[in-house]
């Protein structure tokens, strides 16, 4: 049990996909302007990360590894994730239109998100079991959610403040993102000391 908690917490705080691993920067900067779109995007990411792990983990273990095709990992994962997201979109549109509407444009956007691909590949690299991989995906999604929501707050403060002309727009956003990710460095070592193995 402790192991799951450790995996979950470290995925959220220490190995945060956006702020520590620098994956998924594109939606992090693109969709974090407003809180509601940031939340929508993050929920879609959590959902897709879980689905993608559930789909790619068996493929790696039962198809690629036994046939010595481990090097095809990246291309197969991209293929499967893209198809999966499209399928999920079709299913949602048919059966849960309300959810489809709230996830809206974000679902297809995630199709080629590197954070999703990163989670699935790192799950294999870390040698997790299926359950551990799912927990790690959930934690990564939650970490993405945390980063997005936090940063949308930071950005709304930036919007209202007086910024030098040459700093307006992307420069100040990137600087703020850097400082936010620095603050997450403060978490390093916390989990190891909380749950000594």
């Amino acid at each position, binding site marked *: 049990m402790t192991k799951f908690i450790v995996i979950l917490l470290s995925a959220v705080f220490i190995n945060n996909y956006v702020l520590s691993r620098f994956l998924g920067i594109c939606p992090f900067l693109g969709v974090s302007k407003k809180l509601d779109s940031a939340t929508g995007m993050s929920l879609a990411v959590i959902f897709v990360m879980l689905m993608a792990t559930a789909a790619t983990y068996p*493929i790696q273990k039962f198809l690629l590894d036994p046939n010595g095709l481990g090097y095809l990992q990246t291309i197969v994962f991209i*293929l499967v994730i893209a198809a999966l997201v499209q399928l999920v979109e079709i299913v949602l549109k048919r059966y849960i239109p309300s959810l489809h509407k709230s996830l809206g444009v974000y679902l297809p956007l995630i199709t080629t998100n590197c954070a999703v691909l990163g989670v699935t590949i790192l799950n294999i690299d870390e040698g997790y079991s299926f359950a551990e991989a799912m927990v790690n995906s959930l934690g990564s999604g939650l970490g993405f959610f945390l980063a997005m929501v936090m940063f949308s707050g930071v950005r709304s403060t930036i919007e209202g403040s007086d910024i030098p002309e040459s700093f307006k727009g992307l420069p100040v956003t990137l600087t703020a993102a850097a400082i936010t990710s620095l603050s997450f460095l403060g978490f390093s070592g916390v989990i190891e000391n909380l749950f000594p193995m």
Partner: protein
Amino acid sequence: MINDILTAVIPVVIIGIICGAVLVIASKLMAVKEDERFPKIRECLPGANCGACGFAGCDGYAKALCENPGTATNLCVPGADAVSKQLSEIMGVEFEDVIEQVAVVHCAGDCNKTQDKYEYSGIPSCSAAKLLYGGKGSCIFGCLGLGDCVNACPQNAITVVDGVARVDPKECIGCGICTKTCPQKIISLVADVEKVVVTCSNKDKGAVTRKVCTNGCIGCKKCERVCPLGAIKVVDNCAVIDYDKCTDCPDFGVCAKNCTTGCIMLSDLSGMHRFKEEVKA
């Protein structure tokens, strides 16, 4: 060698085919029926998402047309008659004329006619300036000239000239976004066939108005008396033209000529739609 390549290529191809097949089957099985008129209607609409029709953007209007059979086809003001014609064709209903409209700023108190009561150096926004003693101008009803409407206008049809917003009728699509944005509520939509406008919104008594702006309506009711159609009424010390009555004036321009302060003005509102028709003809 060739075997190695094949063992790599074949699984990927198979996975690809399976994924493709699943997607095709899923999209066929779980297709959500869309009204086939929807894309056609959506194509006709200008896509400015201005909301003049009263629905949430062009998609909203197209959806309403599909789902509620009674929805009028002449609601798209920017698209004007051309769009209305296409829509009525698609919907199979009678063509209805669109009343093309143009935004008019009911204030002409530029810096020659009125003075500032203080120097404003805060956020350059009308709604912010209004919070500070009703704006920097000595007339608290007039245009603040900081350009909230300029920023809101999707067509860049508004400019601030000498401290007062001016709408270029040739650019204005009549969406009415500026009328909602203006914190002073001095912009309104007027049918583009009209030739007379009141350029003042001051509701103070004549003497007070006169002190703050030489263009201001002092509510002398001279226009009421000279208007042969009884279309002008002074409401709250400010002249208001009832455009329903102001048609085919036998003594055109008499109100503007007789206006004491000159706040009733003759002006050519023929907007872009009429302009386009003229060019075509």
